[in-house]
């Protein structure tokens, strides 16, 4: 173990951790700044500080007390969760068909699904509004759950199709011989194997639904049905032009924390080599 080697190795490790630190700082800094700002009030907001100078929970208090923010949080959790479950359910079954069953027009279908996600949301807004009113789900969570499939579904279908293709064929065949129907294969054999992909796409879809603003604004019309991003946009200062930065930052912190916790819970699933041991290797 020569000294020079150790040095080089040390430098490499140091550089690596430096990179990690840079990545973390860059990702977190704005959030940190948001937290910082959320503890400020009044003219303090316009002052640049790098460290907490004042500490007041007033913004949090006002966010949570005023209006229906807690209720909006619940709405968001419900809507995003159901959206993800629905999208994953539809996508898992569809991607099984798309990746595992040969039939004519398969790639055309994949293209069509992709095409759906090409249309600007702005442009479908009016038509979607009509559909939602026609279905009678206007101003209910279902309006959002329903409309969010437009961006969660193509994405999850595509990603899951890519992943499902990689699953070993032998396992499926073993299940077929065991008498498993496609449904059983999906639910009892493939799903447990696809944790990384499911969690990853689920998480991304969840965040997408969690953050969506335009549909949420358009398809709901009461405080009780709105979601968090709209609620944040509804946070307002004492007058028309005043932007309540402190409160907005406090609200953002509140809505971001659950996601961070979600990621921490699922992060082991995001990286898991479950296939090991099933097939040789």
């Amino acid at each position: 173990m020569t000294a020079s080697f150790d040095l080089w190795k040390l430098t490499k490790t140091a550089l690596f951790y430096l990179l990690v630190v840079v990545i973390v700082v860059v990702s977190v800094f704005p959030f940190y700044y948001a937290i910082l700002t959320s503890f400020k009030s009044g003219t303090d907001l316009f002052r640049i500080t790098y460290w907490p100078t004042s500490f007041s929970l007033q913004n949090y208090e006002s966010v949570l007390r005023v209006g229906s923010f807690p209720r909006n949080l619940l709405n968001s959790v419900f809507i995003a969760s159901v959206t993800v479950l629905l999208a994953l359910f539809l996508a898992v079954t569809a991607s099984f068909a798309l990746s595992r069953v040969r039939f004519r027009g398969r790639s055309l279908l994949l293209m069509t699904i992709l095409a759906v996600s090409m249309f600007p949301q702005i442009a479908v807004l009016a038509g979607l509004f009509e559909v939602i009113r026609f279905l009678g789900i206007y101003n209910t969570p279902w309006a959002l759950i329903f409309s969010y499939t437009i961006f969660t579904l193509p994405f999850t279908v595509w990603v899951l199709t890519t992943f499902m293709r990689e699953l070993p064929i032998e396992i499926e065949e073993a299940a077929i011989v065991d008498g498993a129907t496609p449904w059983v294969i999906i639910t009892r054999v493939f799903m447990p194997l696809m944790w990384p992909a499911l969690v990853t796409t689920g998480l991304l879809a969840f965040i997408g639904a969690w953050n969506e603003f335009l549909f949420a604004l358009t398809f709901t019309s009461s405080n009780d049905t709105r979601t968090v991003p709209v609620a944040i946009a509804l946070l307002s200062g004492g007058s028309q032009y005043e932007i309540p930065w402190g409160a907005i930052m406090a609200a953002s912190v509140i809505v971001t924390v659950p996601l961070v916790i979600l990621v921490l819970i699922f992060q082991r699933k995001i990286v898991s080599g479950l296939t090991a041991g099933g097939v040789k290797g």
Partner: protein
Amino acid sequence: AELSVVSGDTGNGLAFLQSQLDKFEEQTGHTVTVVPMPSSTTDQFGQYRLWLAAGNTDIDVYTTDVIWAPQLADQFLDLTEAAAGVVDQHFPSIIESQTVDGRLVAVPAFTDAPALFYRTDLLEKYNKEVPTTWVEMTATAQEIMDAERAAGNPDMWGFVFQGNAYEGLTCDALEWVKSYGGGQIVEADGTISINNEQAAKAIEMAASWIGTISPEGNLAYMEEESRGVWQLGNAVFHRNWPYAYSLGNGDDSPVKGKFDVAPLPAGEGPDARSAATLGGWNYAVSKYSQDPDAAIELALFLASPEVQKERAINQSNLPTIEALYEDADVLAASPFMANWKEIFQNAVPRPSAPTKTNYNEVSSLFWSAVHNTLSGNGSASENLELLEADLADLKGDAW
């Protein structure tokens, strides 16, 4: 009946609205729910359009900006008859701005007009008068700014305003143009008047501020950003709406007690005058309302002198009823309103009534032309010439 009123009102405003609605409910037995909207006016407007286009029956009464009613006129009920008795109490110019083809599409709730905020302490320190023309203001601003910077405040600026390319710039620039006697973009009869020398001069003047007495970043400022600079004590002059007045006097404000307001400066030239863009909010009734009578009742209630008075007292909103400016209670609660009466008398409406549904596009073309000039893309006269052509295209045969 069950009514719903959609409102972009903010924090306290919303609470106030609720308190008034409670009264209304008590008086009439109707129930009213408020559908709050984000304070961004573009978001609100887009929503309203969509809802109205789809014939949304869920909303009965809309809170509308002064410039919206003409654009949405087709979707609102004519209130002329219902409001026949009360119309006279309001400033005629406001009623006029809400009247399209002889139909009164919205009743005014309160009005709004900007002012020139100035630092009394600084003017005193350098022994300056409150400027009455832009040229004076420019000179004063420059002088104080330079002196303050030399004195160790490198962040000091002379004048901040709303320079971002958005509706706010239309307001600011309309004031400049009007104050120089350059007309109001599109005149009441629909003629496009913007391409004139005075207008060009006014805008050139504003362009000369950027980088001298106003920061480059001013080109991206909306109300809050400019207020930020101002309220930190980093600007000598500031153009803003009345809301900045009470905030500037907040307990933690560095400029608390060190500033006052004055009418915006006048320009130079034949028709020079002080001009302030007319703002304000109104109530309109959707023609898809399932109970139009109750809805009209509500709109009129919200525009009534009683509510306006409460509003003036509680919210410091400027009433649209002239009489209220003499009301002792109002003046006791908001003494500054006396200042604003003068400002308000100089108020100029944006050309939304003559341009009707095209107003937003007109405004957008106008602020783009101004913003281009401010950022140094072409001279004012070049840009105004192009603007005129674009407006003519847009207008076609008639607005």
